[in-house]
């Protein structure tokens, strides 16, 4: 291996998977999901084990956790937080409200899921989303974060979920009795369901 190769490979070595910092924003959530997000910081789940820090600061964060559906009031806030985050970044929609609007979908003031405003990378359904599912979703988000970083290194455009919709949507599903997450053809079916 020549020196140049070594430098190139060390450049590709990514630590982004070891240190995902999170910002959590409560859009129009009922607060059920937010309690679960915070629950994952407690001693029982302790996401800091994986290097996760709940920064509360868009400039520091790599992963944007949004709970609740979107309405006119929180739309500009979501957009601003998203724009303030530094690439590479991913968005995780937590809870069924954030995925699609959930029980509030039909309300006259609700615009629907988070993907109506910003591109979403990982959908984590559940009402309220369970901490296990949330951690699973964050782990999936870390994978996407890594792919985005690779794309940045190659000088390719950062893959946006707009490209990902149609292709394959990341779905994390945790039923109360923990049925295995759907794979392959089921996954895309499930994805359509969630949308």
């Amino acid at each position, binding site marked *: 291996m020549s020196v140049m190769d070594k430098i190139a490979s060390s450049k590709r070595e990514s*630590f982004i998977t070891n240190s995902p910092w999170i910002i959590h924003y409560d859009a129009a959530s009922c607060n059920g999901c937010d309690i679960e997000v915070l629950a994952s910081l407690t001693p029982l789940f302790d996401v*800091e084990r994986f290097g996760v820090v709940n920064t509360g600061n868009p400039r520091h964060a790599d992963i944007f956790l949004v709970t609740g559906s979107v309405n006119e009031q929180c739309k500009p806030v979501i957009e601003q937080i998203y724009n303030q985050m530094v690439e590479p970044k991913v968005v995780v929609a937590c809870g069924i409200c954030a995925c699609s609007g959930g029980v509030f979908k039909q309300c006259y003031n609700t615009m629907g899921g988070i993907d109506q405003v910003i591109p979403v990378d990982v959908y984590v359904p559940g009402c309220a989303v369970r901490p296990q599912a949330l951690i699973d979703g964050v782990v999936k988000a870390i994978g996407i974060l890594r792919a985005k970083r690779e794309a940045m290194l190659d000088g390719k455009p950062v893959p946006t979920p707009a490209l990902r919709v149609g292709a394959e949507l990341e779905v994390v599903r945790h039923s109360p009795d923990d049925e295995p997450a759907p794979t392959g053809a089921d996954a895309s079916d499930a994805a359509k369901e969630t949308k």
Partner: protein
Amino acid sequence: MVWLSILLGILFVVLGPVLGCLIAGADRIVTARMQRRQGPPLLQPYYDLRKLLEKDMRANDVVQLILLVMALVATVVGGVSFFAGASFLLCIFLETLASLLYIVAASIGSSPFVQVGVQREILQVMCYEPMELLTAIGIYLHTGSYASGSLGAASVPMVMWLPLIFLSLLFVLTIKLRKSPFDVASSHHAHQEIIAGATTEMSGLTLAVIEVTHWYETVIVLGWVGMFFITSNPLSILLALLAVAIVYLLEIWVDNTFARVKWQVMLKGAWIVALVAGFVNFSPFFFVGTNGLLFF
């Protein structure tokens, strides 16, 4: 002797950040265990640093970056001056310069959280500065010189003569290490009242530079604790290391058990402690003097 100084200086430049990183990692683990959590891996601060280096640059980072690199250089030069046994005074002045550069760099950010954080930084400098100067005077009274290297020739450890100065240095150490009860509610501990304080507007490389500066700083202030135990006997280094370990554990314990105080309490507390300790501890020197020295 000169070669030993140069060697120690180089060792500090090279090993300082490594040690600082390990201390920060151990700190996070011990903190987590105190809260009955498992905590991150030991090398987590290193992973965080590498992650920050991978993030994109923002256009307005450049000026901040220049100032912060200057702060880093000032910290390192100050640390070399201290660990190589040169002037302790130079060390504290350069530390102050680094804090000021950091404050100027941070105040470029326009966010109100940054402004609150910067105000708090300035107050903190006001709080710990008198105590650092008193420590410098203490060294002078003890050895007759401001050089930290002169402690290596002393027959008794400085803590014997200056116990109160030592205790009040521990008091301001909590401020220096940004620990509760004197820290701000910023996101290092999942508190988010003022987001990330002075560093709210920084990201990626700029934040990484701050992180490294902080590692050096930790090693330097722990060095200040250690110097109270150094004598001409080489075994005293072990004693100093033991003292540093105990002090740091104590700091983590205080961090986890004390509620955060308002800045007024911090300012009054730090000044009263420094003045009382300074007056009481230095007054015997008026009459006795050490090493044949009278007060000034």
